[in-house]
C-alpha cells in the first residue's frame, strides 16, 4: 500500500513517515504537484504555523492538485494543522484562504486556559467513527495546538474539551482529520493510523 506524505519543509514529518512505515505501508514524502495529483492516499501532517502551511501549499502549487485529488475520492488524512487547513480560514492566518473542503473557520482557543493546549487529553465520541474503531473511549491522545475548529459541523465525529469544545476527529466520506498527533500518541495512535490505512485500502 502506497501513502504519499505531503512534506512542505517544516516541522517533524519523519515521525509520521516512520509510524506509517511501521504499519507496513510504503511512504513517499513529496511536495511535487504531479506526484500529489497521482497519489493513491494522502497524509498532510502539520506542525508550526497555519500561515506557513498555507503559504507553502501555494508556493509549491499544491492547492489545485490537492483539492482535485480529495474531491475525486482519494483518501486523505490531515493531522493537526493538516486538519485545520481543510476549513475555509483560520484566525491564525488572516487574509489567507484554507483549502475550503469543509465549511467553517478555525479560531484560537479561549483565554482562561493555558495555551498551547499541550499534552494528553481524551476525546468524546459524537457519532460512530471509522478512525476510532477498536480504540478505548478512555484512550488519551497527544495534542499540541492553540487553534481549533468548532465541533458543530457534521464532519465532527469526536470532540475534545479544553476551554471550549472543538473537533478532535473528523470524517466525511474520504476526508479524515485528527487534531492530535497519532504518531505521538502511543498504542491508541498506532491503532488510529492503522484504521486510516484500512479505510484507505
Amino acid at each position, binding site marked *: 500500500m502506497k501513502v504519499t506524505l505531503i512534506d512542505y519543509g*517544516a*516541522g*517533524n514529518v*519523519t*515521525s509520521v513517515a*516512520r*509510524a506509517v512505515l511501521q504499519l507496513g505501508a510504503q511512504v513517499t514524502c513529496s511536495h511535487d504537484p504531479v506526484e500529489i495529483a497521482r497519489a493513491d492516499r494522502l497524509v498532510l501532517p502539520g*506542525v*508550526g*504555523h497555519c500561515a*506557513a502551511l498555507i503559504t507553502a501549499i501555494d508556493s509549491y502549487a499544491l492547492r489545485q492538485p490537492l483539492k482535485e485529488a480529495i474531491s475525486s475520492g482519494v483518501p486523505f488524512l490531515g493531522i493537526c494543522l493538516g486538519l485545520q487547513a481543510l476549513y475555509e480560514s483560520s484566525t491564525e492566518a488572516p487574509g489567507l484562504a484554507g483549502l475550503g473542503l469543509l465549511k467553517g473557520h478555525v479560531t484560537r482557543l479561549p*483565554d482562561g486556559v*493555558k*495555551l*498551547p*493546549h*499541550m*499534552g*494528553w*487529553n*481524551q476525546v*468524546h465520541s459524537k457519532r460512530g467513527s471509522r478512525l476510532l474503531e477498536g480504540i*478505548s473511549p*478512555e*484512550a*488519551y491522545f*497527544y495534542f*499540541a*495546538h*492553540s487553534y481549533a475548529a468548532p465541533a458543530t459541523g457534521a464532519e465532527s465525529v469526536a470532540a475534545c*474539551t*479544553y476551554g471550549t469544545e472543538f473537533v478532535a476527529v473528523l470524517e466525511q466520506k474520504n476526508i479524515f482529520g485528527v487534531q492530535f*498527533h497519532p*504518531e*505521538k*500518541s*502511543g*498504542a*491508541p*495512535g*498506532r491503532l488510529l493510523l492503522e484504521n486510516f490505512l484500512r479505510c484507505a485500502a
Partner: protein
Amino acid sequence: MSLARRILPCLDTDGARVVKGVHFEGLRDAGDPVELAARYDAEGADELVVLDIAASRDNRPTFLETIRRVAEQLSIPLAAGGGIRSLEDARAVVRAGADKITINTAAIENPELIRELSREFGAQAVVLAIDAKRVGSYWEVRARGGRQATGLDAQAWALRGVEMGAGEILLTSMDRDGTQSGFDITLTAAISLQVNVPVIASGGARLPQDFLEVFTQGAADAALAASIFHDELQSIRALKSFLQSNGVEVRLPC
C-alpha cells in the same frame, strides 16, 4: 475529563551516553539513551527530554545521532536541547527527529532567538529552559548549566520568554537539583501561576508525594525527573497509579 498532568523522564547526555551528577557536577555514566528511551515509552512516560549537557561543538554530530536513534524508539513526543545557539542548530535537532527544542543560555544571550524559533516551528515546539537559584528575595536565572549568574529575575524572564514566543517553560530549581529533597513548590507555583503556558517542574524529585505536591500545590503542568527513574528507585507506572488514586489526572497506558 481534562488535560492529564505529564511525567517526563529526562536523559542528560554527554552526547552519546546518559550521565548524571549533583548540581551539574561530578558526572557518572547512567546508561544507554536508546535503551532508556524504549523502556520509558513502554512504562508510560508522557514525553521524553534529551539534553546534551556537554554541549560542545565537537560532539554535535554524536548528539544528533543520539536524537535520531532515540526518536526511532518513541511513540511519544521528544524534546531535545543543550547547546542550541541558532536557528540552524534548532533545524538540525528537529530534522533529527525532535518535536520540541529546549533553549537556555542562547536565549538569555539573545532573546530574539526565541522569536525566530517560534516563528519557524510554532510556539508548541519552543521550550524555554530556566535554571533558577534563590538569591535573597528572588530567584536568579543561571546560565551555562548553572555555572553563571545572570542577574535576571526568573519570574520576569519567564514572562518575557512567553511574550517572545516560548510555548512551554522547563523550570529547574538549582537549589533542589540532584538533592532528591522534593521539588521547589514555591518557585514552581510562582512561575506557573504567572505565565499562560505549561510549566514543567524539575529538580529534586524523589518520592511520589513530591510529584503530588508539585501538581496540587505547585500548579505544575508536568514534572520531570532523571535519576530516580534511571536507577529504578521509582517506576513511572507506580508513580502514575499513586497520582491517580490521589485525584490527579494522569494518562495510564492502555
